[in-house]
């Protein structure tokens, strides 16, 4: 994003204007869009350098880098929008590696005809999310595709962060006996999107949990303790994420259904749509796997943080060559919590 193009004849029409092909052409129209919309909302000294890349100070530690593309539909949903989601999603991927997120880069693919007012709303929300998290968007890129070749806007964000000394977290470190902690209610994000899409009204409206989790992960790391795996159960939900960890670590797991927090409204919506909350996406929850002796301390740390008040110990890692994730149901019976088969819910993040 280059910013040095002053003195436009007419300012961008942010009320009724629409994205057109010239906004991606590299010419004056694009420079104006960047200056009057992106830089105006996201402005910071790195963006103001006005170069094709951001020049950053040395980080001092092991780097983590993560990237995530966002294609959610609808773009605006209860509890968030694609802009905030794009910031949260990538910050969380960096944070789950035990890193402090530092910077973000953002790539936009805009569809010709997309209202500039909506774009401004999205970029503004992105700026707000990045300010709240204290993680700056330091560089970016914009492309425009013809009408019908995109769906409004797609956003890819890339983040870098620094890992604390002595911290090593990885999906292959879970060991038999470890406890599985979950930071709160599952299924909120996916059901917020779906109920919006299906036009469903529930007694209590369901709100996405989209949020940045790096302060919560910092609280866990501050505890010391033997933390082995951190993961945010996004697409595919809790079930899919736990299966991934089980197969990476070559272990099995046993969950207690009664310990897994699900909001009644989410449960009801799932029932109506024939879904299982275990497979529904989250955008503001984490799974922490830790040594059994440290579980009470880490659980207390989660609960002491505003994003983890409903945290729970939901089960244990066991030795199982088959890598099954099992669950003791609320009824007291047992079942497998399998990988997702069949149709996955599309365009949830």
């Amino acid at each position, binding site marked *: 994003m280059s910013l040095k193009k002053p003195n436009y004849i007419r300012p961008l029409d942010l009320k009724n204007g629409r994205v057109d092909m010239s906004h991606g052409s590299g010419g004056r129209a694009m420079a104006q869009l960047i200056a009057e919309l992106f830089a105006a909302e996201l402005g910071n000294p790195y963006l103001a350098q006005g170069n094709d890349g951001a020049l950053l100070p040395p980080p001092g530690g092991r780097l983590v880098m993560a990237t995530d593309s966002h294609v959610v539909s609808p773009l605006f949903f209860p509890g968030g929008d694609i802009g905030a989601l794009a910031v949260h999603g990538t910050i969380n991927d960096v944070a789950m590696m035990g890193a402090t997120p530092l910077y973000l880069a953002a790539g936009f693919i805009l569809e010709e005809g997309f209202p500039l007012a909506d774009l401004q709303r999205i970029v503004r929300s992105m700026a707000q999310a990045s300010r709240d998290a204290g993680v700056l968007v330091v560089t970016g890129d914009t492309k425009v595709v013809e009408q019908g070749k995109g769906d409004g806007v797609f956003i890819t964000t890339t983040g870098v962060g620094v890992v604390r000394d002595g911290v090593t977290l990885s999906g292959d470190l879970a060991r038999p006996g470890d406890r599985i902690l979950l930071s709160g209610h599952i299924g909120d994000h996916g059901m917020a999107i779906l109920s919006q899409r299906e036009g469903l009204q529930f007694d209590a409206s369901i709100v996405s949990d989209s949020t940045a989790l790096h302060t919560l992960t910092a609280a866990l790391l501050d505890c010391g303790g033997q933390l082995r795996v951190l993961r945010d159960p996004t697409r595919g939900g809790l079930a899919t994420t736990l299966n991934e960890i089980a197969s990476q670590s070559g272990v099995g797991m*046993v969950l*207690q259904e009664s310990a897994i927090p699900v909001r009644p409204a989410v449960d009801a919506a799932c029932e109506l749509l024939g879904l299982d909350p275990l497979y529904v996406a989250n955008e503001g929850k984490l799974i922490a796997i830790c040594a059994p002796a440290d579980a009470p301390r880490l659980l207390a740390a989660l609960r002491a943080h505003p994003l983890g008040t409903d945290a729970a110990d939901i089960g244990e890692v066991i030795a199982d060559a*088959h890598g099954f994730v099992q669950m*003791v149901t609320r009824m*007291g019976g047992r079942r*497998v919590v399998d990988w997702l088969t069949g149709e996955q819910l599309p365009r949830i993040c």
Partner: protein
Amino acid sequence: MKYITEFRDGELARSLAAAIAREVEPTHEYRLMEFCGGHTHAISRYGLSDLLPANVRLIHGPGCPVCVLPIGRVDHAIKLALQHEVTLCTYGDCLRVPASEGLSLLKARARGADVRMVYSTLDALKLAQANPNQQVVFFAIGFETTTPPSAVAIKQAQALGLKNFSVICNHVLTPAAMHAILAGDGGKLLHGFVGPAHVSTVIGSAPYEPFARDYGKPVVIAGFEPLDVMQAILMLIRQINAGRAEVENEFTRAVTAEGNRKAQALVADVFELRDAFEWRGLGVIPHSALKLREAYAEFDAERRFGLEYRSVPDHQACECGAILRGEKRPQQCRIFGTACTPDNPVGACMVSSEGACAAHYTYGRFREHSDSPLPQAG
């Protein structure tokens, strides 16, 4: 909300389990068939068999609509879509049912056939209205629950004078299948039935009387919630212990003796009994399915397109037949979980989440691995 949790209360389940454990005679074997796929799904999802004593065995029945659909019928649909270039509409589960020549409706679609998934018969009707120059065929499946909506669509098509809408009718009858099972080995094998939930809201509880009276098998109609199933099992055990064989109704909040008269009249107006119909696994059963009456012949896709039924045997390794009759368990099929999985079904029982093989694969397959540790309730 309250409604759901009320019927899934773990405490109540444990007290029902305790009551069942108290009542069973240790020397008896209780082999109970849950007819419906909806029950099969609930039992697997909640792990209910773990709550039962070892001598109470649940046997999955044939009440899963896509499981009993024979290959020849799916071939009809594929042929229509590929050769007659009709727009073929059906429910989502039908798309993946394996048919002849390694095809399924989904694979036919990848070859260019116009196959659409719809949520209701009326969606198919709307499609026909919107595209008057295109023949739209609805591939109708299901037991008594899905028959009334098909009847409504056909009557509407007639009222609208639609010339481009027709139905392949595969609607089948629950009591006929139960007769077939009891007349075969099932008569010796089974001690009672957990009776259908939704089907019974339509047909009522009266049609099950012959199974109690003539075959001496108790039937308890149950809802689809896990506690409904537990309660029905307890009621069956009490009947068996007392030497009774009656039709009892656990699902009184929805089922009456005579059922839904209006729906029955609608179905009787549009459909009549077929002389015989082939079921996957159960073979040809007389008077077990419906076809369109003469008055609605123009909406019958079999007549409109001159479809001749050809029976096609199942994949040779597939044990779906024995499983649907309650004679074998999914894990006794040699390709269960290897060549046949929900991602790549060989037999029909692996397709729908109500199918016995899919339910066992998805929820229960750790049980065969005796080296897989069994967790305790915490």
